[in-house]
């Protein structure tokens, strides 16, 4: 039994597969998403739109995947446009730029590991609550 905001659900095999796919969606497009951070976000938004009428378990996990990608999107976009500015304008590589790129690399690695773990666990029909995003997901799903 899984508890999401006071609701007990027992996800079926199909539901577990669909919920796991919401995390896999962001991993599949990771190769495209590295140079263009918005691609990952668009992929998870499209998956969420496609699954918004499905069961609570699937919806809940697609929202959590979407929020985790949204958090990364803001960080990666800043790094992306900073890099573009260095390549195409007279901006120079500074210590702050290298520090920022290293920081977002670390955050991306942590998020990647968390997403792989979440995809594997939800496939086994286990409910995974990521810190920060789970609470916000509860608030969004409650409406």
């Amino acid at each position, binding site marked *: 039994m899984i508890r999401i905001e006071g609701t007990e659900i027992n996800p079926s095999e199909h539901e577990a597969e669909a919920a796991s796919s919401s995390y896999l969606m962001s991993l599949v497009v990771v190769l495209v998403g590295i140079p263009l951070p918005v691609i990952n976000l668009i992929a998870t938004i499209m998956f969420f739109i496609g699954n918004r009428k499905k069961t609570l378990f699937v919806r809940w996990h697609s929202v959590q995947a979407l929020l985790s990608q949204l958090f990364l999107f803001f960080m990666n976009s800043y790094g992306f446009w900073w890099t573009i500015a*260095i390549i195409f304008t007279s901006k*120079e590589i500074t*210590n702050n730029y*290298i520090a920022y790129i290293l920081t977002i690399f670390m955050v991306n690695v942590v998020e990647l590991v968390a997403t792989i773990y979440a995809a594997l666990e939800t496939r086994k029909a286990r409910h995974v609550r990521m810190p*920060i995003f789970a609470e*916000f997901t509860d608030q969004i799903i409650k409406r």
Partner: protein
Amino acid sequence: MKKALIQLFLVVSAIALVFFLLSRVDWVSKLGIKNLPSINEAKIEKYL
């Protein structure tokens, strides 16, 4: 919700701290990075 906001604040603070500590290192001289002319500058010089 309050718990989520506190967690968000802690994570953002931790990321900011990592960035602050990494920015103290003189990466440019340590890695020997030479700032190459930007693409625009290179193009302009080519046509001059």
